[in-house]
């Protein structure tokens, strides 16, 4: 089982990283990690684009959703069906699907393992024969960042990026509050948690991980935030032209 995992998921990612390390000018591991992150992000682009779009569309539907939630407060089954009805009426598909997620999971786990293990010991034994195997890998990025040890600055940067991303998702929400503070429902509380709690968690987890992994985390979050910014900007622009974009349309 672990052998299959290693061959299918772990080894390709490790090799890609070593390959990037070989070709990147100055053989800089930090640059190689950033490049690898960008590549992974681009591969997953279609999935994340769809999900950001539909998240946005859903926030615009929030009042209707709240109404249904109140109406069927005690009937879970009924509530679910009514919600699906709303989504259908508004041509929004809020859902992702389990299969792509379950396929991604081992892949993400492999990315995590590659960065966590780093290049200690004989991990370079797994490099394919057609990729030139470096004598040793320099763990210092840009001449000053030690990537094998936890790095507090990278952890804080990752937390800040997380904060920016979550904050943008929440504050771009149109003002829909009807009756003041009473309306601070579960959703709002959860959003607040997401904005303030998650960045802290990110910093604390980041502090325990090798800098290389934290760097990966930071770049991923930053790219997600930028992508989100782009989607929101584009959406607002189209609204001015009178075109309403509503997430993914149910076929």
């Amino acid at each position, binding site marked *: 089982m672990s052998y299959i995992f290693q061959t299918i998921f772990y080894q390709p990612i490790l090799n890609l990283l070593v390959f990037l390390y070989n070709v990147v000018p100055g053989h800089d591991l930090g640059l190689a990690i950033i490049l690898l992150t960008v590549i992974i992000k681009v591969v997953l682009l279609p999935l994340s684009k*769809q999900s950001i779009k539909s*998240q946005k569309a*859903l926030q615009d539907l929030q009042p209707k*959703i709240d109404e249904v939630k109140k109406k069927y407060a005690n009937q879970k089954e009924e509530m*679910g*069906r009514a919600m*699906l009805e709303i989504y259908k009426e508004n041509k929004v*598909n*809020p*859902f*992702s*699907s*389990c*299969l*792509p*997620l*379950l396929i991604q*999971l081992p892949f993400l786990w492999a990315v995590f393992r590659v960065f966590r293990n780093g290049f200690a010991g004989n991990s370079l034994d797994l490099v394919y024969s057609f990729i030139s195997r470096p004598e040793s890998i320099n763990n210092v990025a840009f001449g000053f960042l030690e990537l094998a040890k936890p790095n507090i600055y990278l952890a804080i940067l990752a937390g800040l990026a997380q904060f920016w991303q979550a904050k943008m998702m929440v504050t771009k929400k149109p003002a829909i509050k009807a009756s003041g503070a009473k309306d601070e429902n579960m*959703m709002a509380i*959860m*959003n607040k*948690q*997401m904005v303030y709690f*998650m960045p802290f968690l990110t910093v604390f987890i980041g502090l325990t991980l090798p800098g290389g992994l934290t760097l990966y985390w930071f770049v991923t979050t930053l790219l997600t935030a930028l992508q989100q910014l782009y989607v929101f900007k584009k959406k607002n622009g189209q609204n001015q032209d009178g075109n309403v974009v509503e997430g993914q349309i*149910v*076929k």
Partner: protein
Amino acid sequence: MLNLIYYPRYVAIKIIKIYQKILSFDHGLLKIFRPYGYCRFRPTCSDYAIAAIEKYGFIRGGFKAVWRVMRCNPWNKGGHDPLN
């Protein structure tokens, strides 16, 4: 001895429940990222899997669960899909 035959389904359900707590965007902690739900079916794939394994056992229920996850892809409309 009779209990032994129920062992696989017991373990499988436990594992799915742990998945729900830790990894699932529909049930556990990660729900805060997807407050509107993730799975395109109701009941969700993991709830469906638990029910299927409870009712049909590890092998037959397991196949039903796998088939449900296979259907949970971007080309499927999703919706209400109870176990039968």
